[in-house]
């Protein structure tokens, strides 16, 4: 009796182990395949950026590095390759500098004005509070794409075309960041405010000494997300910037492709693509914890 039960249990246990092993193999193989599909386009691009222009132009795309890496990256960094018929070339360092400025200013600006407005909405009671909140909330429904021409007209009238101010300021209004900070401020216990009041601290003092230090984690997480958001802007710089000295790297590098002629300096273009990807990817990889936190908390 017990011998047969043991046998049965043994059979089940071995079946389960086998299934678990098979299960693990399925996981490993599919994850590796996934990683491969995600990494391969980058691999091709990085490899391509180390060959000379004729190798790529001929279509003999190599799978391993060539010897032109230094030459290509120096050329991309300093000159941006040769000018095409329609556009003059811009050195990658200029475009990267513009992108960096834009991304940091957008992230800092969004965080600053959202902190202030969330603070006003949560910690004060004043006439028009809900109106202000809804006005900010509604901007969620008005992405640039749906008000493209009139916004452009406003920019022209204000003389903001081809300026860093024009590139940054219209993008720093943020309903999502305001909502996130509002959500977080609501969790700050009432006792803190009471204690501050008893100690004679005014609202600005309370903001600086209590609310701001408590928000550091949220600010860091949000900064990572907003930096990437700013760096990857496309339509807005495409509209606002015609002066190539203010070109951002994402838009600038797609302009280098033009109509995608096989005669393009593909090696320089690929080197620029690598340079354009590097900063935001580095931010995600090295600040992964902040990044995941920022993403899962802002987007709801």
């Amino acid at each position, binding site marked *: 009796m017990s011998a047969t039960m043991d046998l049965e249990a043994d059979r089940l246990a071995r079946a389960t182990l086998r299934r678990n092993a098979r*299960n693990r193999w399925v*996981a490993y193989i*599919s994850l590796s395949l*996934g*990683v491969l599909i*995600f990494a391969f386009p980058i691999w*091709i*691009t990085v490899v391509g950026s180390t060959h000379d222009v004729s190798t790529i*132009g001929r279509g003999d*795309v190599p799978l391993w590095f060539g010897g032109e890496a230094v030459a290509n990256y120096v050329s991309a960094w300093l000159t941006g390759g040769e000018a095409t018929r329609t556009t003059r070339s811009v050195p990658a360092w200029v475009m990267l500098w513009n992108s960096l400025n834009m991304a940091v200013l957008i992230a800092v600006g969004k965080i*600053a*004005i959202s902190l*202030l*407005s969330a603070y*006003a*909405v949560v*910690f004060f*009671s*004043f006439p028009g509070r809900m109106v202000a909140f809804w*006005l900010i909330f509604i901007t969620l*429904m*008005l*992405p640039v*794409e*749906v008000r*493209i*021409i*009139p916004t452009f*007209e406003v920019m022209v009238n204000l003389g903001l075309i081809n300026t860093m101010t024009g590139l940054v*300021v*219209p993008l720093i*209004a943020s309903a999502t960041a*305001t909502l996130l900070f509002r959500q977080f401020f*609501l969790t700050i216990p*009432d006792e803190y*405010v009471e204690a501050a009041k008893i100690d004679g601290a*005014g*609202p600005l003092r309370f903001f600086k000494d209590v609310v701001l230090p408590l928000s550091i984690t949220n600010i860091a997480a949000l900064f990572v997300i907003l930096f*990437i958001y700013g760096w*990857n802007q*496309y339509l807005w710089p495409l509209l606002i910037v015609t002066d190539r000295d203010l070109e951002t790297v*994402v838009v600038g590098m797609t302009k280098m*492709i033009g109509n*995608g002629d096989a005669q393009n300096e*593909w090696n320089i*273009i690929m080197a620029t*693509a690598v340079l*354009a*990807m590097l900063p*935001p*990817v580095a*931010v*995600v*990889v090295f600040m*992964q914890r902040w*990044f995941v936190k920022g*993403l*899962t908390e802002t*987007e*709801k």
Partner: protein
Amino acid sequence: MRKKVIFKGTLLPWLLLLPQLLITGVFFFWPAGQAIYGSFLREDAFGLSREFVGLENFSDILADPTYLAAGWNTVVFSSAVAFSALGIALFLAVQADKAIRGTNFFKTMLIWPYAVAPAIAAVLWLFMFHPQIGLFGRMINGMGILWDYKLNGGQAMTLVVVAAAWKQVSYNFIFFMAGLQSIPRAVLEAAAIDGARPMRRFWTIIFPLLAPTSFFLLVVNIVYAFFDTFGTIHALTGGGPGQATTTLIYKVYVDGVQNLNFGSSAAQSVILMAIVILLTAVQFRFIERKVHY
């Protein structure tokens, strides 16, 4: 939820709100108002005068076959992007959630494409599928299949869908991972003890519990496919060949910025505004439910 203890004053809170409200007023509400106002006007050929035409702009674009084609492209493009990005992400998340070694490595390697700009994602795929210089582009041509996404509309659409979905998988993956981790292990173990096989456990426990995450992601993915993929299309196909990859957003850009068609572009903007409002409403209704669980 409301704070019980709050500061007094009217001027200070308005001052704190001023920068945000100023920017939204000048760059959001005023232009949006202009778009709505402009959608009822028509500009003469020389851009000298504008006259009121009622709903004519709307009836014109809704009768315009190129607009309807762009609408259909948008539907095809968005659903293809959303479903492939969601499906692949869910599959990978379930695999990465298994108790295996090296999950952190896999996670990092699957997360980083989020940081790649949509336009750059397009360029990466262009490098691979360019008919003359692309590795796969040449390979397909070598097999005797005529491949040129600059000439063939179906191929162009396929390529923009792949480039757009490729980038969005990592976003969905992060949220599915978070969703999977919040499923109580005890429930899964109980099911396993009761003899439920992995497939059955997935369809009867994991999938239903992930439904709120999936629905939220579906809306986010549709919004992404609608609005954030402008760069992908602009860099890869420029809306072509012909109109094969022109979506509604791309058409607003072409009609407004390149063709300077004032009234039509304003009316298109208003239609898009209605779509965003609808999507946002759906999203927030759902989130309200999630909060009240």
